[in-house]
């Protein structure tokens, strides 16, 4: 990974801003340049995530969600702005920011157990301790007894469960999740949502969860950030006051419906605005 040197920040900008925030995304933007074409994937994105919070980001396909998470993970350099974790500016990727990717990214040559132990082994943790943690997470994700299988013979849902276990077993400061259930069918998706919430209730990790599914964003999050496309930008922050622990049944409550209607309104408004802008642009 080639981490470019980040511009030095004035001291005053650094300190008061990040107080109390576990993760701070500070006016981050990203412009891709390809064959002379400039694509603004992310424009002036600014928000905080507090310790132990479950924050979801909701946005349509191509609005820059993956780009945002990759910048936070340190895999992509922002064009401007920066990311702070525990009041320290990040540069490059690290084990403190775990990530579950949109695509299946289990190492196919390692068994389920070896996949989960990958980060622990890198840390140089002794084998007995490693095995203990692996067993614990296998149980947590309900894959007891699947430890010696290779990813090739797992279903999509099982693969993502292992990917989550692998990220959690490494005990990161924050967990970044990029549409982890995006490729799963509706039924499996629901099961996985509940499972992840159960796991989160036990660990209270700080989680930043990206999705394009409104129900998922509301069901999982303490707060939902609504993102719009072209250029990708946060448009609204919606607190989700639904009490925890949440079960699937909250999806049919009046409160849930109200929140969903609110977000739908917001999204519709934004898409109309975007459509009108394109139309007026054509007239010029």
């Amino acid at each position, binding site marked *: 990974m080639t981490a470019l040197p980040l511009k030095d920040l004035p001291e005053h900008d650094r300190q008061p801003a990040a107080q109390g925030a576990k993760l701070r995304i500070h006016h981050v933007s990203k412009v891709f340049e390809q064959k002379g074409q400039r694509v603004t994937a992310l424009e002036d994105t600014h928000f905080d995530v507090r310790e132990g919070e479950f924050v979801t980001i909701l946005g349509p396909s191509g609005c820059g969600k993956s780009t945002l998470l990759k910048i936070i993970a340190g895999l992509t350099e922002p064009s401007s702005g920066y990311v702070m974790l525990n009041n320290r500016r990040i540069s490059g990727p690290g084990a403190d920011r775990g990530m579950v990717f949109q695509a299946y990214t289990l190492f196919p040559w390692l068994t389920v157990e070896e996949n989960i132990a990958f980060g622990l082994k890198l840390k140089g943790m002794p084998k007995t301790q490693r095995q203990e943690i692996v067993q614990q997470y296998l149980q947590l994700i309900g894959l007891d007894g699947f430890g010696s299988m290779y990813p090739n*013979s797992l279903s999509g849902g099982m693969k993502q469960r292992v990917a989550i276990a692998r990220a959690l077993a490494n005990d990161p400061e924050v967990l970044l999740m990029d549409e982890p259930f995006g490729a799963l069918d509706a039924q499996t998706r629901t099961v996985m949502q509940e499972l992840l919430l159960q796991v989160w209730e036990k660990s209270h990790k700080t989680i930043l969860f990206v999705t394009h599914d409104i129900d998922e964003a509301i069901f999982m999050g303490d707060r939902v950030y609504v993102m719009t496309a072209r250029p990708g930008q946060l448009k609204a922050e919606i607190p989700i006051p639904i009490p925890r622990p949440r079960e699937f049944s909250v999806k049919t409550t009046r409160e849930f419906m109200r929140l969903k209607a609110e977000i739908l309104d917001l999204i519709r408004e934004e898409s109309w605005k975007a459509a009108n802008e394109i139309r007026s642009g054509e007239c010029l």
Partner: protein
Amino acid sequence: MRLRQYLVLKGNIPSGLYIGLGCLSFAVLMAVWCILTYGGVVPALFLPSPSEVAVQFYRMLTELNLVGDILASVYRVSAGFLLASLMGVPLGLLMGSFKLAEGLIEPLVGFVRYMPASAFIPLLILWIGIGDLEKIAVIFIGTFFQQVLMIRDVAKNISQELIDTSYTLGATQRAAFLKVVLPAALPGIVDTLRITLGWAWTYLVVAELVGASSGLGYMIMEAQRFLRTAGIIVGILVIGLLGLITDTLFKALYHRMFPWLERGTQ
């Protein structure tokens, strides 16, 4: 309708049938050979019969030092191929992993690759004579440049997302190379070696046709000189058989090394 069921696009067939089909194709070849020779369609000077070839094979084993020729050839192929692989695999991985290495090496290798290895033979004889070293050099030139580019492609095709995943789990660049790039590339490397070993044999024969005093290629040339057509066929068959054996070994190695590539294994 059994046949119908076996004619499904990319469908599976019983393994017994698969092996049987392989034997069938050999049997057909054999039958055609028998008809052509025993039926007197083709004169023995052009195509000797299976029994003549078998007799010749026995004679060569006992009187003409066939084993010595085989050993000489196997030694040359192994040395040339090993030398090429020892340099080609690391270099290819380097090129696939670092644009810097690719930029430096790719144009040169891409250029030399199109020069026929056999055309180097006169030059090599001039430089290092007609000994084993020259044969090994021909095989090296024939395989190395192809290998480098094939291994480079293998390394290039490794998913960036797997590498990124290892970074988010705390891997350094070194760890990502050793624990992700290498294991991910290994099946492709073994496959490339298997394919290029076949090419190494081709270049061996080319090398031994010129200025050799031992080896299978030399033996074939000698047989032709004395119009021992059966001897030519023995040489070709022996090379084919050696290729088949190494190929089978490589395939077995592949299955042993990469159980994770097969679905549903534990």
